[in-house]
């Protein structure tokens, strides 16, 4: 088997069996990045020397018989995770030269388990976007294209670089974050798997903050099992994050093999949105059929406040972002545009350093939190958020998991949906409710549309029951047998 075709699990087995060294494996991925990143722009920063140093340490550990869960496994790290001594930009001009003096907890956990970091993956600026168009370092290109059409497509966002890198086989897996769908939607657009775990499962310490009550880290990888391996390493209690959950990390890999026999799977009728392409509806029904064949019971359920999820999100997330991004003031984080006085220095630094979408969201957040408007917008949104959570709490008394489409469309072309911010926001209609309620959600590649583009199905579960989510996701993956590959990939025809 060529190294291009390895899953993370297979690469780990190969390393342990000494079929190849970590150095060889890392060299393979660095060469693939070298060849394809100029076209994909999936990485903002590539760290070959550091990766080879990690790989040599991994080979030494393997030689001593001290391999950990990820020893020698090359990964891409979303450029929102602070990495000690390695530039971390959040895809923003305002952090263009920021070199963190510390390591985020999630990346420290991966390093503890032996992972090799290839570099920092591109994203929408401060993770704000659904197309990776807002990056100050240029858009990421989706490795998939429509049949008979070479127009560059977006990889989804905000974790577009992570998803494109994995889909094009430039890494075995990647870290990502999800505030409103930023793991699941790009996973769906790029034909790979990705899970946003329960809020609190992964520490947020050292992850550049966007909306603190919604942000959650998780992995993207080629298979559901690979995601389970990565999440097992990324997750865990961290006293440095006050919202980190103090509970043991279950064996997610074992959960993938549980099967779905006897499970009750809910189908929320409100996710049947108007204007959704018929092929997504068909794929959804097919997915439910697969689960039924494997012994699950399908139950129609209702989540009545679904339609208000996005509007609630676009109050809560900008409000939190306007507070979190106040720290970029031209004093502490490398970028400064001078002014006649301190206020002008702030205003000029932020005008020059932030892109248009980030400015829009900061301004919306500032407005909804401003005196006289707080109750009408922010407080009301928090109440609707409580109703969205109640919808899920009620439904999870009746069913073990929910299955829905991940996104209302396949990947679209660069330039499409760009004229109106709200059109772009509608991408996240099926993913946002999981962030509002804190529940886990996984996207699994399930089929292709008529133009040959991947489509994902989403599995939602009870808080801290990622195990059932992995069980259902694996069952869908097995039945779908998704084997299609993007045209632009390492090992593909150029």
């Amino acid at each position: 088997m060529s190294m291009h075709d390895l899953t993370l699990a297979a690469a780990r087995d190969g390393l342990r069996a000494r079929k190849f060294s970590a150095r060889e494996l890392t060299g393979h991925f660095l060469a693939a990045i070298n060849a394809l990143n100029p076209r994909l722009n999936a990485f903002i920063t590539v760290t070959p020397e550091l990766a080879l140093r990690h790989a040599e340490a991994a080979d030494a550990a393997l030689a001593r018989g001290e391999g950990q869960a990820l020893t020698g496994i090359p990964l891409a790290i979303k450029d929102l995770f602070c990495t000690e001594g390695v530039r971390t930009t959040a895809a923003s001009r305002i952090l263009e030269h920021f070199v963190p003096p510390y390591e985020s907890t999630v990346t420290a956990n991966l390093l503890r388990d032996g992972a090799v970091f290839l570099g920092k993956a591109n994203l929408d600026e401060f993770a704000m976007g659904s197309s990776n168009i807002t990056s100050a370092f240029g858009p990421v290109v989706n490795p998939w294209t429509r049949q008979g059409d070479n127009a560059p497509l977006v990889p989804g966002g905000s974790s577009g670089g992570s998803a494109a890198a994995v889909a094009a086989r430039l890494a075995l897996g990647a870290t990502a974050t999800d505030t409103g769908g930023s793991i699941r939607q790009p996973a769906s657009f790029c034909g790979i798997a990705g899970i946003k775990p329960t809020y609190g499962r992964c520490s947020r310490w050292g992850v550049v903050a966007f909306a603190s009550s919604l942000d959650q880290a998780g992995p993207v990888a080629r298979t559901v099992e690979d995601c389970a391996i990565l999440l097992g390493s990324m997750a865990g209690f961290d006293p440095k994050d006050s919202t980190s959950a103090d509970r043991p990390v279950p064996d997610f890999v074992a959960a993938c093999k549980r099967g779905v026999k006897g499970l009750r799977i809910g189908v929320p009728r409100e996710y049947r949105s108007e204007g959704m392409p018929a092929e997504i509806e068909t794929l959804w029904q097919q997915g439910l059929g697969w689960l039924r064949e494997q012994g699950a019971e399908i139950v129609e359920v209702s989540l009545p406040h679904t339609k208000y999820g996005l509007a609630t999100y676009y109050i809560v997330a900008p409000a939190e972002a306007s507070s979190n991004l106040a720290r970029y003031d031209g004093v502490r984080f490398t970028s400064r545009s001078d002014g006649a006085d301190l206020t002008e220095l702030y205003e000029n630094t932020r005008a020059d350093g932030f892109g248009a979408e980030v400015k829009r969201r900061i301004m919306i957040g500032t407005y909804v939190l401003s005196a006289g408007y707080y109750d009408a917008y922010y407080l009301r949104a928090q109440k609707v958020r409580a109703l969205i959570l109640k919808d899920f709490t009620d439904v999870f008394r009746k069913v073990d998991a929910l299955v829905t489409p991940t996104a209302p469309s396949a990947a679209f072309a660069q330039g499409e949906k760009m004229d109106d911010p709200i059109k772009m926001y509608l991408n996240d209609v099926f993913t946002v409710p999981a962030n509002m309620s804190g529940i886990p959600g996984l996207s699994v590649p399930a089929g292709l549309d008529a133009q040959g583009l991947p489509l994902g199905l989403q599995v939602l579960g009870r808080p801290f029951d990622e195990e059932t989510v992995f069980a259902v996701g694996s069952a869908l993956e097995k039945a779908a047998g998704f084997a299609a590959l993007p045209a632009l990939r390492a090992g593909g025809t150029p």
Partner: protein
Amino acid sequence: MSLDPATVRRIAKLARIRVDEAQVGQLQTELSGILSWIEQLNEVDVEGVEPLTGGAQMAMRMRDDVVTDGGIAEKILANAPDRAGEFYAVPKVVE
């Protein structure tokens, strides 16, 4: 909801983002559009509903009130655009 130009300028001031006069019109349109769209929440009956403030369904933890870090001024100042000794430096704010 339609914002007037003065409100757009006031929000920009509060957000400490310089907005040039030429940008006000476009921002007015975009922000008004987003605010009108989120006003659909007015149709939800939230009478008696307690607001949900966070993503974690648990109580905040207390920790011991002790120093756990410090003495790393050089590391922190390494990212400062301007410094004076062990301090961040900014333009003069007091005459």
